[in-house]
């Protein structure tokens, strides 16, 4: 139906045209218009929180309601969220509208520094173990390409740590201390640069083409399924 698809597509085109054109209009109105748009995006984005929160909490609530395997753990999701929201709104007893001060750690910040930060940092750091294990078990030089990849990886891994300077000094004296770091740098400055630039040009041309397809309504996957 036209009001479900055609009007939104028209909105995409009009908004895109405005976004493209306003950059070339030096009049102060153009800047004010962009500030209005930024404020609007801020507000609309704020409402987007409800969608994310609903999706996550609905999934865990369904798990609890249906007593699915591991449903007890989902209780901790609600517990964690409730405690943080309570602490953020309570704010040391001063109610929901008090702003933070430079020298005082609020309860919310306590939850952030001592629960969120350790958990997130640790979850990301665990990848170090998996990466070392995966490299040992699967990285095999079966052909020239793999050999090039391994060679480059070793040069970069060794050249970027200070121990390589000690090693260079040991082998070739003080003058050899920069041998491995320089080898690593040459590899980064020439073949790596060439490949990354090629990839960057290709990807960005594709992204620009995709933006144009979105503006002209050819690309519609962002609208979701249905009517």
């Amino acid at each position, binding site marked *: 139906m036209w009001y479900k698809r055609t009007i939104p597509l028209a909105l995409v085109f009009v908004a895109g045209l405005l976004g493209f054109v306003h950059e070339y209009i030096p009049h102060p109105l153009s*800047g004010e218009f*962009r*500030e209005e*748009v*930024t404020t609007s*995006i*801020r507000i609309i*984005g*704020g409402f987007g929180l409800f969608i994310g929160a609903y999706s996550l909490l609905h999934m865990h609530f369904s798990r609890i309601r249906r007593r699915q395997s591991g449903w007890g753990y989902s209780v901790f999701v609600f517990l964690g969220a409730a405690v943080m929201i309570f602490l953020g709104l309570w704010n040391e007893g001063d109610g929901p509208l008090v*702003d*933070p*001060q*430079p*020298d005082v750690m609020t309860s*919310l*910040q306590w939850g*952030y*520094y001592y629960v*969120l*930060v350790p958990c*997130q*940092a640790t*979850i*990301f*750091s665990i990848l*170090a*173990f998996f990466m*070392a*294990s995966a*490299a*040992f*078990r699967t*990285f*095999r*030089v*079966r052909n020239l390409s793999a050999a090039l990849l*391994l060679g480059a*990886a*070793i040069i970069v*891994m*060794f050249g*970027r*740590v*200070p*121990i*390589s*300077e*000690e090693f260079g000094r040991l082998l070739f004296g003080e003058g050899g*201390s*920069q041998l491995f*770091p320089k080898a690593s*740098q040459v590899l*980064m*400055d020439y073949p*790596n*640069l060439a490949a*990354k*630039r090629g990839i*960057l040009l290709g990807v960005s041309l594709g992204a620009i083409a995709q933006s144009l397809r979105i503006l002209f309504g050819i690309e519609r996957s962002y609208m979701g399924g249905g009517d």
Partner: protein
Amino acid sequence: MAIPPSELRRLAITRHVIYVLVAAAVVVPLALGLTPGKFEATPYSHKLFDKVNSLPPGTRVLLSFDFDPGTEAELLPMGAALLRHCFRNRLVPLVMTNIPSGVDLARKIVKEAADRSEPDWGRKQTSGVDYVFLGYRPGDVNLLLNMGENLKGAFQNDYYGKPTEDMPALKDIRSLKDLPLVIDLAASAWVELWIVYGADRFNFAYGAGVTAVMGPDMYPFLQSGQMVGMLNGLRGAADYEVLLEKLDRGTFGMMSQSVAHVLVIVLVLAANARFVYRRLTGREKD
């Protein structure tokens, strides 16, 4: 075809042995307090340091801490070193973040750096005078475009609620165009977004600190001059600390980094030596 149980057990043992080796490679040097010998900063770390060093006292520098706790191990030491440099050289850092889950992390870095610089200054750093913590505003790239026209309009208050309009630290700063240098510390596309919607659009000098994963991808921008310098991973933080002559977390982690890298190299080479041997003797098929 299902993997035999004996093979599963062997793989599990191998996996756990490697985990123990990696843990030992990291923990032992740190626990013993080992530090690497003298090492030189990499060229792009040097360039960023020289750029900050060239700014006269009183210059406002925008630092955007666009990272969250997942990557704080690499980027926090960079932020601490940059702020130390700014305070030492009497520059005025304006700190912001585009990552909502990184707000309090950025706040902590700024506060600790301000407190640590008190001996150098002889007095406590004052928010709004010696530094500004702008905090976070939603808006993504539109925020950058707004800052490029009207910085105080984009941030009407700082993180602590103080109005920016008459703030001494922001005197004569109307927009990003009035800033001689912006440095972004990021683990995401923000490094490039600052170039697209900031540096190239409003013509200010731009430097970055990135996680090591992103380092190789930034070389086209470094070579083209769109970035004046870059700190790459924990090594970048260590480079900056060496140049500042103030060793901290970055440098202290370098011995563990070195040992762990050598371990990974040895493991991969050993595995491939075995693979090549088995291929040459016909025991390994393609």
